[in-house]
C-alpha cells in the first residue's frame, strides 16, 4: 500500500513538473512569436552602411574640370580609405577635406608651414614635409592620425568619437581644427565630392551616395511628448510622427494619414486595454502591427485615454468598430455617405466609432442634437461619452451618434469652442 502511495505521489509530481515544463516551453514559443511580430520597424532600421567605393588608381578616367594631379590625389584618398576598411562616408569626408584645404592639389606650401593635399603641418607633428607631400601618407594620417615623437597622438578621423553620426563638416573640422569661421566650410563640397567619387569609381551618383541614407534615422523612440493641452487643428494636420505615444499605449510606428487629399506623416498608438474590431485595428491588420485595440495618432492618444478613463469611471466600458483607417481602407469605403479618401478624420487617427450603442447605425438617425450639434443617442452611455468628449476635445459627428472625433476636417463647419477654425 505504501509503495502504491509513493508511486501516486511521484506520478503526480512528475505530471505537475511536466506540465510546468510544457507550459514554460509554450510560453517561450509565444514570447518569441510576439517579439518578432511587434518588431515591425526592423527592416527600416537595418543598418545599411555604405561600403567604400573601389577605385583603380592606375587607370583613372578623364573627368571634366579636374587635372590629372587632382584626380590622382582624389583617387589615392579614396583608395586609402578603402584599404583601411573605412566606409564611403569616410572617403567622402576625406575628399571634401582635401577639396577645401587644397582643391585636391598636392601643394608645396600654404598657411604657415602647412603642406600637401590636407595642408597638414610638420611643426604640429603630422610628419615631415616629404611625407606629407605623399598623398597616400597624408590621407592615411588624416584617417588614422599620427603618433608624434613626443608620445602624443594627433587624432585622425577614426579617433573622433561619434564621427559617423556627426555632420560631414563637423567630422572634417574635428580632425583639421580650422579657425572657427571655417568649420562649416567643408560642407559645400559634398555634392561635387560625390560626383567625383562616382566618376572615379565608375558608378552612378546614386550608387555613390549610399551614405545619404542613415538607417538609424527615425529608429530611436521619439522624445517629443504631446503637450497636456489639446492639439490645435494646425498641429493635427502637420507631420506628427516625432510625437511619442503615451504610456499605456503601444507605438506602432510612423504611418501616413490623410488630410485634405494629402498624405500626412503621423505616429500611430495602439491603446492598451481597448477592444476594436474594425478595419485596420483588428489583430494583424496594418501589416501585422494592429493588436485588436483602438489605434489613434500620438497627438490624440493622451486625450482619448483621458476620455476613456472618465467614461469608465462612469461605469461604461465602450468597445469600438473603427479607429485609424489607412488611405487604402478609406479609399475602399469611400462613396455614399463615407468621406472621400484623404478627407476623413479616421485617416488622421483622430476619430473612433463606438460600437454597441442602441439603435440603427444609420446616418441621420439622431434622437436630437447637443448644443454643439453632436448627433445624440438616447442611451445613457452616450451622455457620458459626449460629456467627457467635450472635456477632452472631441465631438460627436453631427449626423452619426457613434462617431467621436477630434475635429479636423469639419472644424470650420462646426462651432467648436476649443479648436480654432482653419
Amino acid at each position, binding site marked *: 500500500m505504501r509503495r502504491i502511495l509513493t508511486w501516486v505521489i511521484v506520478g503526480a509530481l512528475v505530471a505537475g513538473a511536466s506540465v510546468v515544463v510544457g507550459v514554460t516551453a509554450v510560453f517561450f514559443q509565444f514570447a518569441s512569436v510576439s517579439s518578432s511580430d511587434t518588431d515591425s520597424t526592423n527592416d527600416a532600421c537595418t543598418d545599411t552602411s555604405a561600403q567604400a567605393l573601389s577605385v583603380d588608381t592606375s587607370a583613372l578616367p578623364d573627368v571634366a574640370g579636374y587635372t590629372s594631379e587632382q584626380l590622382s590625389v582624389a583617387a589615392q584618398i579614396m583608395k586609402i580609405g578603402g584599404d583601411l576598411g573605412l566606409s564611403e562616408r569616410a572617403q567622402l569626408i576625406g575628399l571634401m577635406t582635401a577639396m577645401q584645404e587644397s582643391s585636391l592639389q598636392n601643394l608645396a606650401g600654404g598657411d604657415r608651414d602647412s603642406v600637401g593635399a590636407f595642408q597638414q603641418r610638420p611643426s604640429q607633428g603630422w610628419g615631415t614635409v616629404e611625407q606629407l607631400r605623399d598623398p597616400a601618407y597624408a590621407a592615411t594620417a588624416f584617417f588614422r592620425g599620427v603618433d608624434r615623437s613626443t608620445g602624443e597622438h594627433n587624432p585622425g578621423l577614426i579617433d573622433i568619437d561619434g564621427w559617423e553620426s556627426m555632420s560631414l563638416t563637423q567630422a572634417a573640422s574635428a580632425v583639421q581644427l580650422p579657425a572657427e569661421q571655417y568649420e562649416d566650410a567643408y560642407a559645400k563640397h559634398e555634392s561635387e565630392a560625390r560626383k567625383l567619387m562616382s566618376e572615379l569609381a565608375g558608378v552612378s551618383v546614386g550608387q555613390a551616395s549610399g551614405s545619404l*541614407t542613415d538607417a538609424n534615422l527615425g529608429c530611436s523612440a521619439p522624445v517629443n511628448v504631446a503637450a497636456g493641452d489639446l492639439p490645435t487643428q494646425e498641429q493635427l494636420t502637420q507631420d506628427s510622427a516625432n510625437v511619442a505615444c503615451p504610456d499605456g499605449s503601444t507605438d506602432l510606428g510612423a504611418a501616413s494619414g490623410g488630410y485634405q487629399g494629402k*498624405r500626412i506623416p503621423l505616429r500611430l498608438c495602439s491603446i492598451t486595454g481597448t477592444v476594436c474590431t474594425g478595419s485596420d485595428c483588428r489583430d494583424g491588420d496594418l501589416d501585422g502591427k494592429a493588436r485588436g485595440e483602438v489605434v489613434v495618432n500620438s497627438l490624440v492618444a493622451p486625450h482619448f485615454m483621458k476620455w476613456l478613463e472618465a467614461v469608465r469611471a462612469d461605469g461604461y466600458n465602450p468597445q469600438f468598430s473603427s479607429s485609424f483607417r489607412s488611405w487604402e481602407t478609406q479609399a475602399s469605403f469611400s462613396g455614399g*455617405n463615407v468621406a472621400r479618401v484623404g478627407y476623413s478624420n479616421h485617416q488622421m487617427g483622430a476619430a473612433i466609432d463606438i460600437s454597441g450603442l442602441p439603435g440603427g447605425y444609420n446616418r441621420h438617425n439622431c434622437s436630437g442634437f447637443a448644443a454643439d450639434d453632436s448627433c445624440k443617442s438616447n442611451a445613457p452611455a452616450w451622455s457620458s461619452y459626449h460629456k467627457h468628449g467635450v472635456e477632452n476635445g472631441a465631438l460627436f459627428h453631427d449626423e452619426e451618434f457613434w462617431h467621436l472625433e477630434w475635429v479636423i476636417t469639419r472644424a470650420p463647419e462646426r462651432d467648436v469652442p476649443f479648436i480654432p477654425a482653419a
Partner: protein
Amino acid sequence: MRVSLKSILVVAAAVLGILALVVFSPENRQQHEAPQPEAAAPSVTAGSPNETATEQTASPGPAEVPEEVQEFIDSYADPDASADEWGRALAPNVTPALHASLLSSDRELARTAGHEILDVSDGRVSVGTKTDVSYTLEYAQFEDDHEHDGHAGASHPIVTGIDFTDAPDGAALPLGTDGVEQVRTPVQEALTAAVAQPGGQSDEDREQLIRDTFTSPEKAMSLPRSVDDGAAVRIGNAHELVLAAEDDQLVVHATVPYARDGESSPEWTTVTIELTRDDSGAWTPQDAHL
C-alpha cells in the same frame, strides 16, 4: 528485469512534457479556439485591397478553391484574351496593386503557367501543369465592414500575391506575396534623389540626379527641396511602404524620415513613387509626387 525508479521518472517526465507541448502548442490552440482574425488577415500595406481583411475561412480541400480564386487562375492562363480583356478579367479578384503589376507582367509566362490546381493549404494555392508547380498564389478573405448606413458586410476572397517557382531571368513578374521587398530598393533610390540632399547641391545638380533616377520625372521635378537653404539632408530607410495603384500603375506610398546632416531628430514625409519596369523586368522609379 529491474527498472529503476529514476528511469521511470525520466521517461514519464519526457512523455508528459511532450504531451503538454502538443496540447498547448499555438497550432492546436487555434484549432480549439474560435477562428482568430489575425491568423490570416492580410497586410493592408502589402496589398492595398479593395476591402478590408478579416479572418481566413477554413481552407478548401485539395483542388478545391473559392470561386473567385478559380476565376483568377483561369483568367490568368487564358491564352486567347486580348490584353484589355485579360486585364479586365483579372481585376475583380486581385488587389489593385497586384492588378497593376500584372498589367505590365510577362504575358507569355502567364500563358505557359498552366491552370491545374496542385495543392491548397492555408490560403496558398499551387498552380501549374500536371505535377510541375508554376506559381503559388496567396489569397485572403476580405470583408466590407462599413458601419455607416447599416451596410451589410460582404465578404469574398481576393488574390494578394503570386510567387513563381522558377521564373526565367528577365521575366517581368507580378507582385509576390512579399511585394514590399520587391520594391524596397528602387523606392529607396527614388527617395534618395527626391528627399535627400548632398551639401552644396545646386538646383541643376538636383535636377540631374532626379533625371538620372527616374525614367520620366515630370512631377518629381516639382517636388520641393526638403530644406531650402542648401543644407545637407539625410534620409532614413522608408518606414512604411504601401503598395497601391493609380491609373492602373503600381505606386508606393513611402513614409520616410529625414534630417539635416548631423541631426538625429527627423521630420517625416510621405512621397508617392510611381514604378515602371526596366529592360530586365525589374521595378524602377518612373516619377514621384507628394
